């Protein structure tokens, strides 16, 4: 990276530029039907305390048994993030008291996580690739939920989420701006959704992030960091980082020092505020959980998962570029969601890939957004988009007519061929017919013809417009041009 690139990310303060240093801990809920150490369901939205087993409620004598599906999911995620899979990992107990933590400890992985170092490619502010280091991924249990607003002087506990498997994906402090952090989270989410190890549903809390933020003079020593806890939207992540970095710059520039602390982001004010200082930090008394043996994986177990990996977003981008000749930007847009890719590849079959991607990302996405419709509720099937582009390619309709057809397709889910036929929208490519239109226009605009012939060349456009109008937009614009030119000599 060049210095010029970095500058885009700097905060300019009174004393000069400041560089932001960001590391993220993403908590991604593992996609699995049952919890990490119990058979209870992970289904979202059930009545409180519906998905709770004896193990989750930490009844006396209950023991955790590892859910092999969750192990596979973690390995899969590790492979997707180019990470080392550790054949030996250990589950530890992280001890602390809270009412929604029935065991009095969270089973997590501390010294020996299941996944080691990896990396993820994101796009930086200049549109260039930037590789972000992954420190580790470990598996851990989620806690339950405390409800403080159900009763004036009682708190309620919901253990449905207790024991659900989370992957904690820890990045290296390689991120330099709120935008990069957002792009990183987006990319992680995309990757996990691709390989189906996390549904990435941030509103339901399936993906949350803790952000470690510090600032320093460009290339200076690392500053003291603050951790902003539990952010559950990409927007909040960038807002919180921006606010926090500016807050730190302000303190440092006015001669203060940053206290290492845990902070909370207030979504209503857009500010972060102190939750607890380093001195008040818990001593979690980590130690290996004696109820669980160390997790040992065999080479064959790992290679089996590796050989079964679906195509990953980065690979897909490359393939879409080479196979369909689209731009990297477009490829990245399509790859953002697995369903987009599926849709794109189906609608681009035997068609001009660039044309299809334009229709998809501008027209289709535009209409969906305007009408507030989710992509999976999309009324236009990929076959019909393919058909529409075919009609454009073989000049049955012009691009302009195609937009009208597209809107009808969007409203009715009808086939474009049918719409064109019913409405008689086929492009007129017959010279004679066009000549008739041209003659009519010339006859009706004698005065304009005079002006044109006397040198007002600009009026050519007027004639084209009139011919198109007379033909109800169906005349092939190329032919109209050609015939007009010969007639107006």
């Amino acid at each position, binding site marked *: 990276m060049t210095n010029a690139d970095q500058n885009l990310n700097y905060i300019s303060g009174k004393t000069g530029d400041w560089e932001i240093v960001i590391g993220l801990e993403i908590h991604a809920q593992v996609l699995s039907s049952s919890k990490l150490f119990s058979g209870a369901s992970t289904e979202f939205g059930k009545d409180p305390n519906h998905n709770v087993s*004896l193990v989750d*409620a*930490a*009844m*006396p*004598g*209950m*023991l*955790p*048994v*590892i859910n092999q599906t969750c192990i596979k999911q973690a390995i899969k995620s590790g492979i997707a993030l180019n990470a080392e899979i550790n054949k030996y990992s250990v589950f530890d*107990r992280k*001890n602390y*008291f*809270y*009412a929604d933590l*029935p*065991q*009095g*400890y969270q089973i997590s992985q501390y010294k020996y996580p299941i996944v080691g170092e990896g990396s993820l490619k994101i796009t930086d502010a200049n549109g260039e690739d930037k590789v972000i280091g992954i420190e580790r991924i470990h598996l851990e249990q989620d806690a339950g939920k405390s409800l403080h607003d159900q009763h004036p002087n009682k*708190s309620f*506990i919901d253990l449905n989420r207790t024991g659900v498997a989370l992957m904690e994906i820890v990045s290296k402090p390689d991120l330099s701006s709120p935008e990069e952090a957002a792009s990183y989270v987006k990319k992680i989410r995309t990757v996990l959704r691709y390989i189906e190890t996390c549904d990435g549903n941030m509103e339901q809390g399936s993906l949350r992030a803790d952000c470690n933020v510090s600032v320093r003079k460009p290339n200076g020593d690392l500053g003291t960091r603050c951790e902003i806890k539990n952010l559950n939207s990409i927007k909040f992540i960038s807002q919180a980082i921006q606010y926090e970095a500016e807050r730190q710059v302000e303190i440092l520039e006015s001669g203060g020092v940053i206290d290492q602390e845990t902070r909370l982001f207030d979504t209503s004010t857009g500010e972060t505020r102190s939750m607890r200082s380093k001195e008040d930090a818990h*001593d979690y*008394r*980590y*130690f290996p959980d*004696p*109820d*669980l*043996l160390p997790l040992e994986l065999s080479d064959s177990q790992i290679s089996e998962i590796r050989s079964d990996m679906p195509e990953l977003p980065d690979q897909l981008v490359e393939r879409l570029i080479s196979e369909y000749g689209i731009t990297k930007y477009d490829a990245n847009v399509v790859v953002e969601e697995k369903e987009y890719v599926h849709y794109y590849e189906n609608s681009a079959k035997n068609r001009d890939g660039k044309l299809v991607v334009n229709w998809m990302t501008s027209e289709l996405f535009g209409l969906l957004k305007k009408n507030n419709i989710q992509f999976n509720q999309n009324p236009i099937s990929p076959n019909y988009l393919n058909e529409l582009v075919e009609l454009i390619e073989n000049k049955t309709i012009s691009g302009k007519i195609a937009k009208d057809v597209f809107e009808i397709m969007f409203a009715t889910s009808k086939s474009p061929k049918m719409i064109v036929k019913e409405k008689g929208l086929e492009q007129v490519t017959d010279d004679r017919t066009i000549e008739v239109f041209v003659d009519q226009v010339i006859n009706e605009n004698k005065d304009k013809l005079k002006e044109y012939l006397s040198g007002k060349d600009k009026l050519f456009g007027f004639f084209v417009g009139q011919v198109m109008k007379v033909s109800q937009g169906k005349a092939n614009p190329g032919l109209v041009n050609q015939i007009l030119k010969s007639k107006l000599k």
Partner: protein
Amino acid sequence: MSNLLQFSICEALSLLEKKEFSTKELVETYINAIEKTKDLNMYLTTCFDQALEQAKVSDQNYLNGNQRFLEGIPLGVKDMFCTKGIETTASSKILKKFIPTYESTVTQNLWKEGAINLGKLSCDEFAMGSSNETAAKGEVINPWNFEEKRTPGGSSGGSAAAVAAKAALAATGTDTGGSIRQPAAFCGVVGLKPTYGRCSRWGIVAFASSLDQAGPITRNVSDAALMLQVMSGYDPKDSTSSNKDVPNFYNDLGKSIKGIKIGIPEEYNSDGISSDILNAKDMTINFLKENGAEIIPVKLPLTKYSLPVYYIVAPAEASSNLARYDGVRYGARIDGNSLDEMYENTRNLGFGDEVKRRIMIGTYVLSSGYYDAYYLKAQKVRRLIKNEFTEIFKQVDYLVTPTTPTTAFKLGSTQDLLTMYLNDVFTVPASLAGIPGISLPIKLDKNKLPVGIQILGKDFDEQGLLNVAKVIETCASFKDTPNGAAS
């Protein structure tokens, strides 16, 4: 039949099969015995109605010739085992009125084979103690010289006392650092701690997960084999349970021990060990020699580190295992003005002193800054102790040691906790190594109190261990009965 209490499990099974008496009669006799021995304070809860109902089923099965492995055998269950629908407290106030909706795997295995539950037996609170004095409902009195009010040992004090007092035909126990073997020795009965992983821990209130192991307390070695047969087995619900095959423990009993090598560890001769106990050890060595075993003196120099290691590892695990007793979901709750205050009130009143002490020790040794010096180091030494046993078992087949440095002491006599902890000095090493151990009575000491001898074996060699024990048992021919026993 005159006195049904005199029969062992083996004898009772054969007599029940011959219809010499019914299960109902047997169970009624035991219910009666429990009533008669009430002053010994052994049972925390009884379930006589359920037991009599079960007896009907058993009698029907005998009638139809469908009897199961332990059909109609009335047992007592240590209160550490969760029993469905029956209050389970681990002898702690914090679990007062806790009624599990589930049955521990080990007890379920017993009931599945026709055994009958008479009730729940007292123990040290959360199995933390060696004298049964930390039980919330008060100490159990050893039936030997009961008027002297001696300890039955602990933590399975209620279990050992009940078997000795004939208030149960056999009982379940749990052993974390000697909690089956030491009370068995103090009460003159047989106590077997199987290899770690042999019996499922599922449904047993956890004390120290890496050490806890269930086992039987019985009148004799053959009964221990029968009980273990049913209690053992792989349980997918316990990740640390072993999937090794469970051999037939009973069939090989009485096999010759000619040529087997018995190691006598030098280190198990701590100061203050009574001459009676040393004498019992010598007697045992002679029995073994007479039966053709080879006696080999061996050294286990790391033994001296066992107690310190144990008193770091066990409290560390306990401090975490007992965090769940927080007043939020079950058991006792003492309200407060905040969540923290509720925790403090509940745990302050719910736990006894010994439990609190161990939680504090455990919390301390796991704390950041102390972890490496205590917990991590203790785990390393534990591994060395395990290795030492593995090495020694390349030279000898079994080890013979005293079970305890003393016989049963008087209740309330140990003011000094360290002295109390030292009582486990001979039993703790096997717990740390995970190897099986059995204690059986050899003789009475000068105070007419039973003296126990411990045999230790290789991982999963309970079969051989029981066989050696059987040989010693036959030679020792210990037939005395405590004066506090029901008759």
